[in-house]
């Protein structure tokens, strides 16, 4: 079975690595670098999982997560951010997320493996 993932990440070097590694394990990906564009895509399309950064131009990750939750309670959302403070984590956990990773602390190989596991559960 093929999965579709939306990668919302404004840093091109990071977005490119994520895109590459996920496609390598057979996941269909779409990358968006801007928050407002992401809102537009979410309103029109459905994904199995959304990888979401929190600091973004256009609209931040918190706003996007709210929009996702308004549309669907069940969409899997994995937060990938470099905001490591507990209050940021607590804020998104209240809205409902599947996982929260601090990008700089997780190797990409481990991250892609975790995403794969989440998609399969």
């Amino acid at each position, binding site marked *: 079975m093929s999965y579709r993932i939306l990668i919302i990440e404004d*840093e091109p070097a990071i977005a490119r690595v994520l895109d590459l*590694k996920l496609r390598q394990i057979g996941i269909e990906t779409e990358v968006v670098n801007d928050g407002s564009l992401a809102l537009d895509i979410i309103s029109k399309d459905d994904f199995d999982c959304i990888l979401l950064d929190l*600091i973004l131009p256009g609209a931040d990750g918190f706003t996007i997560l709210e929009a996702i939750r308004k549309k669907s309670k069940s969409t899997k959302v994995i937060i990938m951010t470099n905001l*490591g403070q507990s209050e940021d*984590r607590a804020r998104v956990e209240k809205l409902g997320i599947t996982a929260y990773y601090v*990008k*700089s602390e997780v*190797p990409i*190989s481990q991250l892609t493996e975790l995403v794969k596991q989440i998609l399969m559960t």
Partner: protein
Amino acid sequence: MNKKSNPLIKAVTFRVFTLLVLLFTIIIYIIILGLAYLQYTGGIDIIYTDTTTHLLITLVGVLFVIGWFLSYTLYIGIIKPVYETLNIISETVSNLISKDEIDKEQVVYLSEFINHSLFQLSKSSLTHKINLSLITESYLKKLGELMRQNEELTNSQQELSRLVEQLKDQQELLELEKAKTNAIIDSIPNGLLVTGKDGNIFLVNKELEKILGLVVDDVLGKFIYNILPDIHLNKELTKKDSENHRYTSFLDYKSIDQKKNMILENTSNPIILNNDILGTVFVLRDTTQELATERAQKEFVSLASHQLRTPITSIKWNAEIILSNNIVDKEVKLAANDIYKEGIRMEKLVNSLLNLSRIDLGTIKFNIQELYLDKYTEEISQTLKPEINEKNLSFETDIKFKNPIKNDPVYLDIILTNILYNAIKYTNTNGIIRLKADIIPDKEKVLITISDTGIGIPQSQQSQIFSRLFRADNAKNSHTDGNGLGLYVVKKLIELMNGNVWFESQENKGTTFFIELPIVINTEV
């Protein structure tokens, strides 16, 4: 005073008259005695030659002698003492009148009476004079009494004057002390405001005037809420809870000209004397600039958190891409591996700096969750597996405490990862790392123990290992990549959790860290 009734003039006149009589009597007596002598000797033939005349002359002489004696006796026995006594009275009365200490009316009355008596004396008979002397004597007694009273009054007045002088000295000292106290109060670099129990302001210092842009007269006597509406007043305090009732708050304050918005930090404390609350002391500080700087620092930390981590992530992940590519040359992979490791080092440094800033700024807020230590420590050891495997270390866990603890997973991770990472780093190949957790009975605390068989901490440097930027000599020699912040951050975080950390170490044998944490940590940091 009526001239006619002046006793002194009368007395003087009488005295002169008496002296003249005495003088006249003496002259006559001498003449008669001379004539009698000449008659007797027959040296001179005088006018009176018969015996009758001779006897008459002798009689007249004797009468003169008696007259003189009587006059002299009268003068010495009665007139002179009365005159002198009255003179003393008059002088004393005059003295008394010139002083303010005794009842003037009484003295004036006495003086009038004596004057009147003297006038009577000047024209009365000897009987009257004797009576008057008796009256005068009784008044003299009274006067003596008055003089004694006057003396007592004078003594009292002297004592009073001495006391007044002492009071003046003490008042001067008090004024000096007051001036000193005011100078001290005015030199306090924070604003000081004191209210009574009713909330009315009775003391402010110069700095407060400066902060509020008001002058003392605008403030004194006013109710504090009229000056600072948002301030907390200890009015409602009871005696019991007042002991530890220091209150700190931040107030928005708009200066009187409405031009300046300020944020004031206020610390108030009740004034307690003999278990009674007398009022409240407020110490105010203009923190506007300070808070703006702090806000900028926090923003910088947040910015650094994101901005520094992003390129580190990019470096690490891209290095991983190269490392995972099978067709890449071995030398390139070695280089990519170094890039990856340096990325991890940078990441650790950034994390340590961020944690340090949060500790320094006091911005750490614990997000408490239920954590099962067995599962939680397993997850942590998983993330350290590459390093453990690389050195072929044996990692043993023994988690006896099966109930959940309540702690912040992010900060507990920082604590445990830091100590475990040190244990791995400073333990030689094939060594053993042990992680244990057990409850401390009666203490509602859990004890986590992490021990290694590593290089240990030199005895001489053990007291410094929780210091900021400190690294032990043997650690520096074996590993150059430490930043000396890890254990400092660990200790600070554990303290914020109301826990405790200590260690036992022997060089070249190993180190054991003991972490004592409350089963439920407090969210208030």
